[in-house]
């Protein structure tokens, strides 16, 4: 049986529990003739492909997928899962990502057959529950942000940004106003400038001042009648509140521009201050950060966009609307920019968000923000004696360290510290963002971590720093206890292997 000696079998040594081997791909576990699938017995005649289709349409051969038993499928995927860190395994202090613990009840709700089993094309009279969820969520999001109405269609933050920019465009065009620039601070998230381009605008970058906030003078210098608007995150990506926001708003409004609020950092301010009250006209929210959607290894999310009254008529549609007491229907806003999603948005994410909001209530949401900010400040203070804090003053929900001096003095970089932290049982913080901080390490503890966990994290930082100074090789070799060690990223890009067939 010699070919067997080469074939992949069901060893568990690729899972961390027993070893550190690579896990074979499902294609290597595949054996011709094996299968897992089972379909319903339909009693329908088994016409052949040739009987049903013109020869010219027919595929020459079957699409080769894997051929595995259900048992091997389960073992393979379960082993893969054991090679993956997650919030459920421990703290995940990734700055800007809000990797909080999300209640499991939201998973249960998203799995209800009466929600998950609803076809999106079913008419409104068959989907009143869904429309009620949407209308209720929209109302809650508007209250939280201080806005008038919202679209729930955008599937993520970036989609919300682009939607918001198209709303700006529609608004200005309706006023017969042709504008071409959008102002963005240099600390902005990369999706902001990318969205601006897709929205058909040019980016004008304003620098941050030495307090880490928008440089007001520089902003005023670039304002003009061709400015469509400004995109801001507040608190910004340094975790700092833009204290001059009222003045910024006035200045932008003065030139006829609109203010766009990137709500990725909403977790810091719920119940404390509202974008609408700060003067913003358009707000997108990352429901997957603030409101209970576990991030899924990269998604899904939802990026609803809320607007002030003058923009409501342009919102994407159709929108779920309460047309009569307790009766819901789809209504198209009169001057809608159109549809931005194939159906109604990431509905199950929306349901999760509403459940999260309702469990907490207004006070609970404020408490979430308070504790998020408390935790961030606690870790800032705790670490400030050993690390340089980029802008060392009270922060909101996250804090940015700069490891520039460590690199200069010891040749150890932010990424090295990040990798070394993993050996201590923590996911790495965000590295090298925001771009304006040299050797940035950005920590967002979130509100669901306990002070004991924060202390353990701080101690892990201290261990890593100690190693950086006294045992540099260990830091450069880190992580050594993870399923794989440092990965050759350069080779991945140079010798691209993007599929199993490209090997």
């Amino acid at each position, binding site marked *: 049986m010699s070919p067997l000696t080469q074939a992949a079998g069901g060893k568990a040594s690729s899972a961390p529990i027993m070893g550190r081997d690579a896990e074979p791909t499902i294609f290597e576990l595949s054996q011709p003739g094996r299968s897992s699938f089972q379909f319903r017995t339909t009693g329908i005649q088994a016409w052949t492909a040739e009987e049903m289709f013109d020869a010219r349409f027919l595929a020459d051969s079957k699409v080769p997928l*894997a051929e595995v038993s259900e048992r091997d499928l389960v073992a393979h995927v*379960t082993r893969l*899962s054991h090679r993956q860190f997650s919030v459920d395994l421990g703290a995940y202090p990734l700055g800007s990502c809000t990797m909080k613990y999300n209640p499991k009840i939201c998973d249960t709700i998203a799995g209800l*057959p009466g929600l*998950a089993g609803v*076809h999106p094309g079913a008419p409104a009279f068959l989907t009143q529950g869904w429309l009620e969820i949407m209308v209720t969520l929209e109302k809650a999001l508007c209250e939280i942000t201080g806005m008038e109405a919202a679209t729930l269609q955008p599937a993520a933050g970036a989609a919300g940004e682009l939607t918001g920019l198209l709303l700006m465009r529609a608004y200005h065009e309706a006023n017969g106003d042709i504008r071409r620039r959008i102002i963005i601070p240099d600390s902005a998230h990369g999706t902001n400038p990318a969205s601006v381009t897709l929205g058909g605008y040019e980016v004008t970058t304003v620098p941050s001042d030495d307090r880490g906030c928008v440089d007001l003078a520089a902003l005023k210098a670039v304002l003009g009648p061709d400015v469509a608007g400004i995109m801001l995150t507040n608190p910004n990506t340094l975790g700092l509140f833009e204290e001059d926001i009222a003045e910024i708003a006035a200045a932008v409004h003065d030139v006829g521009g609109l203010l766009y609020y990137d709500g990725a950092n909403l977790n810091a301010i719920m119940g404390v201050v509202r974008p609408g009250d700060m003067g913003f006209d358009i707000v997108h929210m990352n429901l997957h950060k603030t409101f209970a959607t576990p*991030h899924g290894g990269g998604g899904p999310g939802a990026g609803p966009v809320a607007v002030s009254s003058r923009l409501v008529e342009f919102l994407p549609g159709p929108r779920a609307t309460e047309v009569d007491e307790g009766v819901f229907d789809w209504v198209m806003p009169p001057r809608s920019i159109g*549809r931005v999603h194939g159906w109604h948005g990431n509905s199950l994410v929306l349901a999760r968000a509403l459940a999260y909001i309702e469990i907490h209530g207004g006070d609970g949401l404020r408490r979430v923000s308070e504790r998020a900010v408390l935790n961030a400040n606690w870790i800032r*203070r705790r670490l400030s004696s050993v690390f340089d804090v980029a802008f060392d003053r009270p922060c909101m929900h996250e804090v940015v360290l700069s490891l520039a001096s460590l690199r200069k003095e010891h040749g150890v970089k932010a990424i090295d510290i990040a990798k070394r932290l993993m050996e201590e049982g923590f996911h790495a913080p965000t590295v090298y963002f925001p771009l304006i901080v040299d050797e940035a390490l950005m920590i967002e503890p979130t509100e669901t971590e306990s002070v004991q966990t924060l202390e353990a994290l701080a101690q892990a930082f201290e261990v890593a720093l100690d190693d950086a100074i006294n045992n540099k090789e260990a830091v450069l070799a880190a992580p050594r206890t993870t399923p794989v060690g440092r990965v*050759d990223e350069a080779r991945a890009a140079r010798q691209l292997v993007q599929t199993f067939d490209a090997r």
Partner: protein
Amino acid sequence: MADYLPHTEAELASMLGFLGLSSTAELFDAVPTALQLSRGLDMADGLPEPDTSVRFNELASKNLGSSDRLLCFAGSGAYDHELPPVVRALASRSEFVTAYTPYQPEVAQGVLQAIFEFQTMIARISGLPVANASLYDGATALVEAVNLGVASSGSSRVVLSSGVHPHWRQVVETFAQGTGHEIEVVGLKDGLTDWSAIEGTCGVIVVAQPNYLGGLEDLDAVRALCDQTGALMVVAADPVASGVLKSPGAYGADVMVGEGQGFGTALSFGGPYLGLFACTTKEIRRLPGRIVGETVDVEGRRAYVTTLRTREQDIRREKATSNVCTNQTLMAVAASIQLGWLGTEGFRELALACARGTRYLANQLSSSTTAKLLHPNMSTFRELAIRTNAPASLVIERMAAKGFLAGIAASSLTRGSDPSLDDADLNHVLLASVTERRTAAEIDAYILALEEAAA
């Protein structure tokens, strides 16, 4: 007071003390008092989890149209496919669900390898060598394909078959307001795209296979048209069709986009779904979104990592190929599991079963006096356009009372006139579809009910 916050009163006091603060309010001193909300949020009090369960069960029960209550014959891009317990169990493992984007590959091999396997499977299904790690849904994937096509061809003239799902067309048109692409929609003739009027240079030509009436387009002709006009050929494909029909790649398509919901994701009232995107190697540096590549770790063990990152927004910023950041990885992981479960044979059987069910429905329909196929002679895949005597929306209402979600009223998708149908008809067109989950007995019952409902 229902929440998930660990802070005890004693810890709160001690933590504030450590910061030299005497109240939580002081944490927000940086926020100008004038801006601070001087009242609580205007919302109901927090609802404990068990009450929230009760509430959402009630909301769910108001969705009379859910597939556990009405037998689903609706398709149009969202399908009632088998969701086997094994796939659900695996895809819901919390390591996948509660992970972030795999930025630290050493502790993210699970998600990375799952995506790598997903990319391989989608590439094989599309007949193209490159696939990305997912986009939001089919419609927005098409927007990305159009953007890629314009960038690659250098022409912003985009020709869109009106056989493309009306919602997708609408989404393309919305985003073109920003990019400024010129979108030209071409009509259908006898259910298939009528390209005859297209001349001159084009940037992108988009065709759907099958189109939203179920019709199978002549993709060889589209390829020829693209060669002639210089356009990139983008196929908005039903990926299930590749189980039995030629893939977009086999026709020489440059880009395939599709909706991946059918692979392991529930109907979900339209989202989160899964945007599929595959293209030629030539376009790889214009590929939107994330891509995972194989490499090795320091010890030479096989490892995976996100690669070609210089296309992405966090690095390229305003010059990025796309603004996508968060995508739909969890659905991609589910799809890779579902496709692993289907396997080579199951994938083919799935396509055949859908085709057989649709054919059976079409056959049985031939005796109906109140409902007839709109294009009886057209070759179709798993979608049927049915002309009903009564308005389609009324038919759906009547059928619901009999226990069926009869399909989709074409007019509800187009919301207005539509170049793919002449206006007189629109309100009488019912779009129906059959998956592998429908039995002959169910279809017989449907036909019986429809005879009356369509009258």
